[in-house]
């Protein structure tokens, strides 16, 4: 399409399309979604007022506005709670180690998968490694709870019968295993799926670069390192930005399934604590305050990570 065509289209388009009937139709089409956004995303924002108030659940929705302000008492309560810092440690520990292990492993998997020549074998690997992504955390977590069971689980059976351990390991009831359990199951569940984006980025790398490099004598690993890796850099940066901004967000659905009263010292994270204080102990104001702190920090981390990424690699999310 040449520029004059474009101009003509724009003028004619506006004359044709900006009439009242068109706009009414569009409003009817966009309206239901707008109502959904306002009701389910914007109305809850008013509830954040509870974080700065002394809120009694009995006072209902009206109470959000009428309850007395208590300034930062809810926040003081949180920081004075002896359970708070261990929770922060669990949250950050699982997420940080999870990302530090998970991102490189997923990239290595994608790099290796990219080197598979047979398309059929490649797509078979992909289909099979996608499987856990489509299982719920209840099922996937449940599978591991069964596999790791000290009495009947196959992993302990093998460990004991191969004389690697004397006693079955208490994977689920000993807190010292919990971080590892959360990190490994998370990695295994999304390894195949997580590789999709990297593979797509690799497919976009100019093939002639590989040919030129191999003529120059670059081996397979050199090509991977100097051509493929820079090619997926923008995708990698986006993944890192997401990981950084999600640092305080644990996967509630995962943690809650794997959590039990015995591993609680290592498995209580901010998200499960919000659920417990809010919906089980009805301390709505305190739970909201934790939630608010989390989302504010997440936003700061998102903007900060994006800024850093743009400074360092010149590519970012926005």
């Amino acid at each position, binding site marked *: 399409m040449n520029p004059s065509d474009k101009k003509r289209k724009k003028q004619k388009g506006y004359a044709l399309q900006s009439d009242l009937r*068109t706009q009414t139709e569009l409003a009817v089409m966009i309206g239901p*979604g707008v109502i959904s956004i306002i009701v389910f995303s914007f109305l809850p924002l008013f509830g954040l007022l*509870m974080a700065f108030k002394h809120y009694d659940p009995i006072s209902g929705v009206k109470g959000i506005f009428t309850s007395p302000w208590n300034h930062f008492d809810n926040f003081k309560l949180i920081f004075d709670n002896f359970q708070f810092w261990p929770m922060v440690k669990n949250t950050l520990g699982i997420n940080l180690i999870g990302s530090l292990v998970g991102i490189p492993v997923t990239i290595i998997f994608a790099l290796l998968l990219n080197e598979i020549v047979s398309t059929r074998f490649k797509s078979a690997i992909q289909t099979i490694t996608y499987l856990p992504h489509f299982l719920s955390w*209840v099922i996937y977590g449940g599978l591991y709870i*069964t596999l790791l069971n000290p009495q*009947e689980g196959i992993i302990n059976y093998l460990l004991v019968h191969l004389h690697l351990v004397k006693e079955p390991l208490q994977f689920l009831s000993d807190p010292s295993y919990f971080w590892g359990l959360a990190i490994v199951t998370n990695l295994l569940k999304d390894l195949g799926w997580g590789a999709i984006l990297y593979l797509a980025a690799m497919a976009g790398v100019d093939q002639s670069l590989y040919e030129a490099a191999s003529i120059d004598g670059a081996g397979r690993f050199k090509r991977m390192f100097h051509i493929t890796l820079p090619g997926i850099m923008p995708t990698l940066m986006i993944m890192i930005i997401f990981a950084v901004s999600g640092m305080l967000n644990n996967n509630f659905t995962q943690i809650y399934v794997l959590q039990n009263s015995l591993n609680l010292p290592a498995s209580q994270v901010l998200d499960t604590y919000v659920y417990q204080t809010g919906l089980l102990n009805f301390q709505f104001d305190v*739970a*909201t305050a934790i939630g608010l702190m989390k989302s504010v920090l997440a936003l700061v981390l998102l903007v900060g990570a994006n800024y850093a990424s743009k400074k360092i690699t010149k590519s970012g999310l926005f």
Partner: protein
Amino acid sequence: MVGGKSLGDRTFSVTNTVIMVVIMIVTVYPFWYAIISSLNSGIDLQRGPVFLWPRIFTWASWRAVLADPGLLSAAWITISRTAFVTIISIFYTAMFAYAFSRPYLKWRKWYMALGFTSMYFSGGLIPSFLLINWLHLYDNYWVYIIPSLFGGFWNVIILNANYKAIPDALFESAKLDGASEFSIFLRLVLPLSKPVLAALSIFTAVGIWNDYGTTLYFTQSNDLQTLQYLILKLLQTSSAVEQLSSSASLSNPAVSELLSLAQGQGEITSRTIELASMVIASIPMVVMYPFAQRFFISGVLLGSVKG
């Protein structure tokens, strides 16, 4: 790949293939283990785990689980909400995205601001809980439907990027023929967006099928339990039993009923009941996703790369 077949190359290929096979086994085996264990006699399973194939094959646990009224009612809740939400929300979101994709839409910037704000700011769990209560959706079947009708602004962005791939000339000629916006959407845009709609439908369906949070946060009646929630309670009950911790909150009539199917010393034990429910509840997703796989790349990657 380019380059000759040197010894190093061949070593690499073999090692790489071995690594991939190991990864495939590690991914699939837990699921396979659940299948064979659930199809094995329960009392035999207590003697030692099965590895590749059931030692004493029996459908007993599967039959017991599939005949259990509590589980069937949970399955019905899950199936109906998944079907309902998937069908409506795809249409609802695609329609929103169509109007949003029109450059001549009035107040388009405001809608964009609204959408992006909804992506980055959220009230969190407790304010949502109060909202659900206020709307009288608490402990109500509609809590599974109404809040999920709009598929979220992220899906709008993906759809918008896909709509952009439709040539402008098509819209113009439809407009010149006097087609209304509705008919352009229904007759032109929807048929041309099948791959992305298929991909988004699958993601929505998987998300709804696998969700247990809504049940956990916003319901309390036993007859509103979903499959995933029921299985979660089953797992929590048996782990509580194993750890000899008695927690009152774990007593759940549907779970007790399901566990009462176990005959203590017979073919069916609480372990096989657990595994059979887990396998049965994941069958629909496991069967569906390989067929849907071709849409993922064409539908969603296109959107995210172009967007």
